[in-house]
């Protein structure tokens, strides 16, 4: 054996395109992948009958579609139609070259059918068998190929990961320790979730390691650990490029089959119509009769023998190139040099028709050359002690290496809705978990709708702009189903029938695959189940409170709040944060929130006050999901805008305490700020249900400078509640 290793990884993925209705064009993606990639790869494994150390990643949508009787039966039907078309073609007067290729296809489609039926129409059985025989290793992907760097919450990322592993385990009988991250997209933090979910390795593009911090000593010659201990195996672009690049790689050779020329477009419509879409849409049959030929539109016929010859040549060339590459790094020890070559499986067979045979031949040549192939799992078993730990920043294997494909002007419109679904799921699970069997099933179904919507394929297709309408419609449909089911959950309109209909629309994943607790946060669990009930509360907005008392006002607020709490009221006090004081404090029924402003360095008083008011409103809007406020009580002019706005949006009475007014503090005041404060003070006098003014001020005095009504009165003694009980009660439901 020569020093160094080679590791081949094939990732099989398609979006979930199973539709109950017949003749959906997208369903043909599955047929093509099975005929051109999945079965031909299995043929190579079967032919070689020995440990190849290939790692096959198969995504949950592919697993589920392969296991789906509807897809299986339609695929057999599709094969029969293909055989029928080939028979008709052979009965026509075609050229010798065409006839030869048609015989090749005739044999091939018969073989496809034989293999498919041999595995009882479920290719998962084939992959599983070969894996159990030790010929290949297998991993899976996240539930629907969601693009991790653009998810909003840990929960969504965890749900995608855990659901994917659960689904795979149900079909394959084991839980893999490796995973394929969709689009090889890594983002700091995803490694923590992966590790917690039992995943020990994944794949990244080579610049993830080349630009890692610190720069790894062995470059891309060895995997590294992410900060949370997940091994990242880097794609070797030079070696991979030999295979995938249509420019410098093997697949562009003139003798290989031409992808873009299909028999469907070389025949008259009248003739081919019976094999096309009933609505008159022409599509690829999969019978491609030409070879690449060269950089020309005049394509020559495919010559199978020539292609086979090139497969041999290219397999030999690849083995020689790899040998040279490994020898150049032969000095590397601890660990020995490793070349990792991860690919989309569909490259082999679908895009590069002869690809699967090439892989089989390469396996043979590597044996002859004494080059050791290894799976990442085995590599880690041997060399886990020899890997460096580094920080890897966000990156992918997509165009330009980052997120350009998945977030751009064509697909950005989806993101805010996806994030809304994520946060709604967190909230719904907190609120409805284990409330009833139906509610639990609805939560699982909501997660199913979400994962179907978050598939990276929709953004990818919208970026490419082919079949963009399909992608946009699928995204909208899953979002709509989410919205409708969530509404039924809120309105207590769930039923077995409704849930069954939602599932039937896209019967992807078993309920047992989906763990709703992935969306649960411990804090929400505390709030919804352990915190206990609290009475309807008074919301107090004040510029001064404990720790920040400047004058009479702060003292008065504290006394009032404590007096009300002593009477049994629950009080929420919102006041600006003062450094050194906690952001939250609780004393029995008094909750004190010291709010942080969005900017601590505002110069102008009015802007500082505005920042405080915005902070009050944002916090109150967060609280009202769980706290019921029966009244708002604001102190001083500085909290008036927030109090007015909240009283209006929450539809509750507004109380105001004004110990002084701008015009009384500053009788000869004038100027912009003076006027602005005066206007704000006037606004609360007009709108509050009751305004309490300081005992030292007379209403006449105030009335000289402000428009006051009969809602203005002198502050009550501390032991008298300023809130008119009758009014509060009437306001409550």
């Amino acid at each position, binding site marked *: 054996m020569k020093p160094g290793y080679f590791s081949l990884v094939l990732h099989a993925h398609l979006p979930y395109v199973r539709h109950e209705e017949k003749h959906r064009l997208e369903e043909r993606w599955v047929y093509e992948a099975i005929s051109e990639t999945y079965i031909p790869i299995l043929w190579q494994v079967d032919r070689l009958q020995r440990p190849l150390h290939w790692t096959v990643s198969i995504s949950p949508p592919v697993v589920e579609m392969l296991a789906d009787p509807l897809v299986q039966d339609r695929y057999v039907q599709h094969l029969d139609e293909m055989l029928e078309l080939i028979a008709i073609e052979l009965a026509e007067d075609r050229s010798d070259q065409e006839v030869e290729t048609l015989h090749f296809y005739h044999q091939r489609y018969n073989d496809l059918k034989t293999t498919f039926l041999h595995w009882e129409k479920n290719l998962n059985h084939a992959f599983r068998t070969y894996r159990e025989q030790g010929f290949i290793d297998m991993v899976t992907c996240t539930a629907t190929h969601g693009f*991790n*760097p653009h998810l909003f*919450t*840990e929960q969504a*990322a965890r749900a995608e990961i855990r659901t994917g592993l659960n689904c795979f385990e149900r079909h394959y009988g084991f839980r893999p320790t490796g995973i394929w991250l969709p689009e090889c997209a890594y*983002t*700091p933090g995803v490694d923590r979730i992966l590790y917690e979910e039992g995943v020990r390795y994944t794949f990244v593009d080579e610049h993830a390691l*080349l*630009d890692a*911090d610190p*720069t790894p000593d062995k470059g891309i010659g060895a995997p590294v650990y992410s*900060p949370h201990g997940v091994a990242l195996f880097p794609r070797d672009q030079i070696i991979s490029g030999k295979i995938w690049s249509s420019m410098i790689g093997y697949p562009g050779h003139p003798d290989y089959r031409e992808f873009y020329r299909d028999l469907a477009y070389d025949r008259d419509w009248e003739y081919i119509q019976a094999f096309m879409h009933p609505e008159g849409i022409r599509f690829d049959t999969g019978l491609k009769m030409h070879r690449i030929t060269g950089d020309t539109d005049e394509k020559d016929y495919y010559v199978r023998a020539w292609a086979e010859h090139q497969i041999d040549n290219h397999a030999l060339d690849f083995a020689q190139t790899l040998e040279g590459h490994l020898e150049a790094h032969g000095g590397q020890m601890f660990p020995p040099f490793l070349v990792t070559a991860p690919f989309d499986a569909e490259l082999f067979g679908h895009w590069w028709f002869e690809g699967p045979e090439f892989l089989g031949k390469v396996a043979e040549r590597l044996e002859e050359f004494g080059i050791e192939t290894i799976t990442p799992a085995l590599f880690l078993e041997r060399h886990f002690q020899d890997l460096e730990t580094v*920080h890897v*920043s*966000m*990156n992918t294997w997509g165009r330009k290496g*980052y*997120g350009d494909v998945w977030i*751009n002007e064509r697909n*950005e419109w989806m*993101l*805010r809705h996806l994030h*809304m*679904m994520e*946060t*709604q799921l967190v*909230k719904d699970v907190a609120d409805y978990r284990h409330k009833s069997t139906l509610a639990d099933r609805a939560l699982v179904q909501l997660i199913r709708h979400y994962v179907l919507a978050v598939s990276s394929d929709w953004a990818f297709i919208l970026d490419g702009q082919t079949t963009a309408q399909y992608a946009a419609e699928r995204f*909208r449909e899953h979002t709509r189903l989410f*919205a409708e089911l*969530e*509404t039924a959950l809120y309105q207590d309109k769930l039923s077995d029938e409704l849930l069954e209909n939602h599932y039937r629309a896209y019967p992807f994943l078993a309920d047992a695959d989906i763990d709703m607790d992935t969306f649960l*946060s411990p804090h*929400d669990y505390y709030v*919804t189940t352990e915190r206990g009930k609290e009475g309807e509360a008074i919301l107090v907005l004040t510029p001064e409170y404990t720790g920040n008392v400047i004058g009479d006002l702060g003292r008065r607020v504290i006394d009032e709040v404590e007096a009300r709490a002593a009477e049994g009221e629950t009080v929420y006090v919102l006041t600006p944060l003062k450094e050194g004081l906690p952001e939250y404090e*609780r004393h029995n029924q008094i909750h004190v929130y010291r709010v942080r402003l*969005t900017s601590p*360095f*505002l110069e*102008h008083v009015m*802007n500082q006050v*505005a920042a405080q*008011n915005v902070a009050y*409103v944002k*916090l109150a809007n*967060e609280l009202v*999901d769980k706290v*019921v406020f029966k009244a708002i009580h604001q102190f001083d002019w500085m909290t*008036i*805008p927030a109090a007015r*706005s909240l009283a*209006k949006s*929450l539809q*509750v009475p507004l109380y105001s305490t004004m110990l002084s007014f701008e015009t009384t503090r500053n009788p000869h005041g004038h100027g912009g700020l003076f006027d602005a404060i005066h*206007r704000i003070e006037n*606004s609360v006098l*007009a*709108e509050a*249900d009751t305004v309490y003014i300081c005992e030292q001020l007379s209403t006449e005095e105030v009335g000289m400078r402000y428009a006051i009504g009969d809602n203005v009165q002198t502050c009550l003694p501390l032991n008298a509640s300023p809130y008119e009980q009758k*009014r509060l009660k009437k*306001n409550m439901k």
Partner: protein
Amino acid sequence: MEKKIVSLKQQGLTLKQIAEQLDMPIGKVQYAWRKWRSQNGEPAQPVSIPKRKTERKTSMIPKPKPVPASSMKQQVASTMQHELPVQSPLLDQGPEGFWKLPDRYNQDLMHAVVQSPNAVYVFWEVSDSVKETLSMQFMRPWEDLPKGFRILDITLLDYASGHANRSYTFELPEMTNSWFVRPLDPNTTYVFEFGIRTMEGEFLPLLASAPIDTPRAEPAGHGRFAEPVRRWQYGEVESPELLDTLPKYSAYRFVR
């Protein structure tokens, strides 16, 4: 109750008089009346409690635009407390009565995702109540407040401290709710803010994104992450001093 209010209103009583007669808070009367009017095709008028002498001043509050009944209902549902939400925020209807993606969710949120080492996509939304608070504060309609966007480089700094290595502010067109921010520098920690430009010319941030690191685009050598990684690897710190782009979310994070 709504019928009663409508009937009294049609008899010519003011909202305040109705509130007194029915012993209800004026807000409720006002709400019921507005709801009835909007559902019955009458253009919704600005909220106007009979305001004694202050009528002129409060009329500076922007007049709410007439809203179709469907969106009115949703708005109320999302702001009314005391009740569980009656429908999903993702449920919305287009003019033909079919479901459509909502235009907005009436919340305060700003989120940034990486596009490349030199570009970040940011989207945001400002709730009605924050807009209204600012209108009440500055006595100008929300639409008239100039909008701005600020880029803060807070590499190795704490955003809460208010300090930044550098910042750049620019004006945004009205009605903007997302932006591809570019060009940015690779390997830099940014926070993005959406806000308004006040009369004094000060930038008042209303929303801020979580800090986000742009990816490195070249070999780092022994860069700013090397030491934090080492400290975490060797257990010298209890939690990693590294940004986590997938933090756990709690729906009730402020409820204690």
